[in-house]
């Protein structure tokens, strides 16, 4: 079969569009399966977080909660949004700006006992800077806190 030039061009354009469509699908799929959601300690406590897959939590490191195991590299600490707390375990070197009482974001997953195993701990480079996720967690807890003020003492 001999194709006319016009048909040939049409087929080529169609193939091109299909390939671009496939690329778009690949990108969107990759995007969807690699999105990391953010939750507050309150949501973790309520069990509103995905089981098995990773997510981020943010808040403040509870003062006095930082403990090291004997190997010196495994650390335990507690993250709070001032309403609820989440215990965290992390093995590795903590970032420069990790400090008790300061904002922190951790990425990892939570097990049945409620322990959060962090694969990554982030604290950004500015003494007064609050990671946006941590700030959000505190804000949400505060909003709920204000509503509880209405209740009779």
């Amino acid at each position, binding site marked *: 079969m001999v194709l006319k030039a016009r048909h040939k061009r049409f087929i*080529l354009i169609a193939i091109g569009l299909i390939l671009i469509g496939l*690329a778009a699908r690949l*990108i969107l799929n990759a*995007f969807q399966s690699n999105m990391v*959601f953010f939750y507050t300690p309150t949501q973790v406590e309520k069990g509103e977080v995905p089981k098995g897959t990773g997510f981020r939590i943010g808040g403040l490191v509870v003062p006095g909660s930082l403990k090291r195991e004997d190997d010196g*590299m495994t650390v335990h600490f507690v993250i709070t949004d001032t309403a609820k707390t989440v215990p965290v375990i992390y093995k590795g070197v903590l970032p420069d700006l990790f400090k008790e009482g300061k904002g922190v974001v951790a990425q990892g997953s939570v097990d049945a006992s409620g322990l959060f195993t962090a694969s990554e701990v982030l604290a950004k*480079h500015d003494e007064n800077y609050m990671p*946006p996720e941590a700030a959000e967690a505190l804000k949400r807890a505060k909003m709920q806190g204000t509503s509880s003020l209405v209740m009779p003492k």
Partner: protein
Amino acid sequence: MIPEIGHFALILALLVALILGSFPIIGAARGNAVWMGLARPAARVQFFLIAIAFLCLAYAFASKDYSVSYVAANSNSQLPLRFRIAAVWGGHEGSLLLWAMILSIWTVAVSIFSKHLPDDMRARILGVMGLVSVGFLLFMLMVSNPFDRLIPAAMDGRDLNPLLQDPGMIFHPPMLYMGYVGFSVAFSFAIAALLGGQLDSAWARWSRPWTTMAWVFLTLGIMGGSNWAYYELGWGGWWFWDAVENASFMPWLVGTALIHSLAVTEKRGSFKAWTVLLAIGAFSLSLLGTFLVRSGVLTSVHAFATDPRRGLFILVFLVIVIGGSLALFAWRAPTVGRGGKFGVVSRESFLLANNVLLAVASMSVLLGTLYPLFLDALGLGKISVGPPYFDTVFVPLMTPALFLMGVGPIARWKNATVPELALRLRWAFAVSVATALILPLLLGHWTPMIGLGLFLAFWIFAASAHLVRQRLSGDVATLLSRAKAVPFAWWGMVIAHIGIAVFTLGVTVVKGFESEIAVRMLPGDVAHLAGYEFKFEGVKDSVGPNYTASRGQFRVSKNGEERTMLFPEKRLYTVQNMPMTEAGISPALINDLYTSLGEPLDGGAWSVHIYHKPMVEWIWAGAALMALGGLMALSDRRYRLRRKKLTDQKILKATR
């Protein structure tokens, strides 16, 4: 007084930019030579005025004038002079001034090296650059004035972010901005061509060297930034797919597509509309990148809540530039006409395919960078998209692109055939497949990703070797003269492509064979990694100009033979009371050894991070080769010839 002079110079610069952005363009439309003639002097005066403003701000930093609010926020009396000067672009306002300064440099450069252009074309180009300048100057004067006074003056400054107190800060931002802003030239050429309806191959020829120049700067800027992150952040990484990095990578991807597309437009007259679109895209992404990084929107999308005018101005500016140029494109592009026809298998097709792949890749980066911001801004939740997304996307997109890089330069223009290409590339293919299969086994282990990366790197090496051999084949006696006859631009292309191969090789090896440990070490302890012994010899206190440091000492040996000493530091910058890690690195061709100090533990012990990074330096060497290739293309004879011809004409005129 000095800051007021700077402020006043900015106001005058805005007036001059308004003249530059209006009269020459209107003059070009009406054929008014006097109005068009205003472009060149206006470009020069604008440069002069912005340079005065820039020097005034630099003087305020150097002389520690903490009555200027921007200086007080980004400097400190303890800060060494070189960082006080670099602090000029350490924050939002000063970065904008640097941007405007560099734009005025490019504008003057265009006004000097555009004598061969038709008067109306030159007037339009300089006019469009003037309009961009109006936007930036207006933005500074309205909402981001670097010369705002602080009353009462601060006793001392809040200091430059310690992370930025590094030689990288002196070179990286100006380099990057030279690249970003350099794309404004390609953009202005495209807009001027659209306005004048002269989208021919001459336009592409004029635009090419400027675009290549900008691309070289951007490549070097990104390379410098990546290297800086590697040694400064202390995590041993060289690319984090951080939004700040993505902001510079997107224009690079589109700019890379643009320099290739321009080549086709110049040589074959094809892809005209696509080239214009890429020129608009590269500059739009540069603008977006500048604002993303420098507006604080990344730290928090609600940063603008404190000053909503800034966000509004940026949005309006972006809409005018991007929307306006796209509207012009839509209006004018149909008149462009089609270029030369080409077959399905031809160099044009391969270049087009790579162009599309690069454009799609930059769109995927745009999605991953902006979507989380949109969700957050709309209050729909907080998400983050990390390296896994970009890794997943980039491997399938870049694999065909790198493969085609081997084929494209060998294929003929207009029409090539698959059997012929296969025949000519069969040895290159065999060599790269064999390398991909065997080399990893010699190095220790084989994974599909290592195999793929090595295949692509050696494919480009082998195909480039074939290309060079074919070009120089013939009698040995005349080899030298024939090599000299090959245009520099062609060698530039080969070198830049080899740069990609070197880069790919570096990435593949470091990703496939790197190793790291994090351990607690007491003085005298020895850690083992990748066959090396790292002996920790304790930590000494040392004092810098504005920090105190704990300086660790590591003696590295292999099989009992001493190799090197590493001195990682943990610094505490006293003004902001901020700790910083300085990695101790021994860079080498084959193996980087990298240590960083974590934190002090009980009993004089430290937590220590040790990395073994094989061939990581090749990543930056590859980028440097790409830039070198770009420079070689720029030094091509035909650009020099034209200037020579021009001076000849001048002499002729003068003697007449």
